[in-house]
């Protein structure tokens, strides 16, 4: 009775996750309750996992390829991390955490770091065996990040802190000062190791990598959901008020700011001199690094996930659209194909 009369406000449906392999031949789309491998050139389906839709499975996270390209890792709302063979779509292994998985794992040469809504970060080896596990104070909805030479992993938690763990054994090295709000986006890391992280406290922060103290602050109009993209010493990100910002990493001052048509939830993609970002409505924006809007394209549905650039193709995965994957030319003017999964 209640369920029938209620809207979808509390529904736990996921949103599309997307990635492409390094040679830009295959896109991997996590949509609804299945994962699809799609040919980037033609838009045809190569395989799907599982073969039949499973209502228990739902996705919020982007699929992630391991660095050797031998595994596709997909975090699911059913608490499982699935490892799939990227060439055949068969399952290799799965690992169950004790709560829902919202964020994609971080993959390094020999480890997988999977955050969970159970407040914990799970460090697995590439065979899916637990190496260590550490607990923060709240659900973790952001993919962790690393710097190449620190031997550490940075884990942003919704408890308003970022944790720095020893990547090998999970020893807590540093806990940040209180950031004032939850963090659900992956921090960007500057050339000097500075972390740039957006919070629900309507701020973009620059954190010192050694002690994770706040070095610089920039006030935004609303919550910052997605992590920033860093390109040529400038960070690009949006907030829920529809503002899109370009800030200098040196002092966190604004190069420019533009107003989009709806909330910005995902991390932008950068290619050449253009920045690509999606709004929560149905539009993909292409903006130059100088802040002028080069193109804006209405896609349809609701776009929560980041656009992906695969070679000379721009891939967008709208949620609630009959075609959950749309391929455009990089200038956004030409629609190359639509992927509509067969029933």
């Amino acid at each position, binding site marked *: *009775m*209640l*369920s029938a*009369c*209620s*809207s979808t*406000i*509390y*529904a*736990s*449906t*996921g*949103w599309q996750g997307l990635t492409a392999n390094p040679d830009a031949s295959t896109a991997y789309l996590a949509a609804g309750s299945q994962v699809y491998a799609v040919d980037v050139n033609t838009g045809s389906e190569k395989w799907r996992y599982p073969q039949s839709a499973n209502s228990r499975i739902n996705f*919020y996270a982007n699929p992630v390829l391991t660095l050797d390209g031998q595994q596709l890792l997909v975090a699911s*709302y059913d608490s499982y991390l699935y490892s799939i063979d990227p060439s055949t779509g068969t399952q290799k292994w799965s690992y169950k955490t004790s*709560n*829902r998985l*919202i964020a994609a794992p971080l993959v390094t040469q020999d480890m997988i770091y999977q955050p969970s*809504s159970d407040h914990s970060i799970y460090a697995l080896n590439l065979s899916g065996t637990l190496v260590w596990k550490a607990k923060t104070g*709240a*659900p973790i*909805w952001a993919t962790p990040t690393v710097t190449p030479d620190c031997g550490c992993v940075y884990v942003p938690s*919704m*408890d308003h802190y970022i944790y720095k763990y020893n990547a090998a054994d999970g020893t807590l090295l540093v806990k940040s000062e209180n950031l*004032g*709000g*939850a963090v*659900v986006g992956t921090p960007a890391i500057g050339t000097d190791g500075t972390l740039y992280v957006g*919070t*629900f*406290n*309507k701020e973009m922060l620059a954190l010192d990598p050694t002690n994770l103290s706040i070095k610089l602050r920039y006030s935004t109009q*609303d*919550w910052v*959901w997605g992590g920033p993209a860093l390109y040529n010493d400038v960070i690009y990100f949006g907030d*829920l008020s529809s503002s899109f910002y370009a800030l200098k990493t040196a002092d966190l001052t604004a190069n420019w700011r533009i107003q989009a048509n709806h*909330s910005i*939830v995902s991390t932008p993609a950068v290619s050449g001199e253009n920045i690509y970002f999606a709004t*929560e409505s149905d539009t993909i924006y292409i903006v130059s690094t100088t802040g002028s809007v080069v193109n804006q394209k209405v896609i349809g549905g609701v776009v*929560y996930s980041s656009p992906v650039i695969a070679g000379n193709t721009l891939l967008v995965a709208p949620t609630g659209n009959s075609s959950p994957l749309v391929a455009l030319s990089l200038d956004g003017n030409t629609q190359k194909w639509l992927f509509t999964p067969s029933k």
Partner: protein
Amino acid sequence: MNIWNTIILGPMVNILIWIYNLVFHNFGIAIVIFTIIIRLITYPLTAQQLKSTKRMQELTSSKKYQEIQKKYKDDREKLAQEQMKLYQELGINPFSSCLPTIIQFPIMIGLYQAISLAMASAPIQLLNLSQNLYTFIPAAALIPLNSKFLWMNLGLPEIATPLISIGTFAIPILTILVVLTTWLQSKLMTPPSTTPGDQGAAMSNMMTLSMPVLMGFIAYSLSSGLALYFIISNILGIAQYALMGNVHWSNLLPKRKVAKAK
């Protein structure tokens, strides 16, 4: 933002979070206080419903009403006309006892949504919550809300974090309490039937059995925060009716069998 969100959901979710901020960031206590507030606000409706039900009950057990029932038992149309005439004579609106229930229905739906939305256990819910928060709510400091209460995670079904398990079977304590309190509430509020073969009483009996099952199913399947609301609401409902002197404790006693006439 649509009208439903503006009038019902928005105020409810903001009040719920405002209370949460006042009571040691404990969402379980916030739900309890919120349920009490809702019960107090809807008290005039409950009192009105009770009054109307009582008048209808007096009417249906009156001699005149019984005579009409008997006289027109084979002519439904005429029976309805005569009943309506009787209502008009006595100034009773037969629908006035239903109206308060109908008005309370959106409140119940709104509450359910508000609890689910405030718990925001998934990104889409949290995005929706962000669009529904008023500026006086210190959202950045509060989110994510602490969903732990006793052994429960209020945003998840109770069986996700069971208190007692037998093997792999998690015992749904909240569901059991929802079923019990719903049954108890229905049982205690139903006036004993004075008319043999009373169809209304038969229907009430059926509702007394089916409602607890339905509510139990909802409590089992959805978030434990909602199950907590059901339990508190049922207990408060019984207390409210008891204070108004309308609880039929005799319904809990086993009925005596009427000896068959030889």
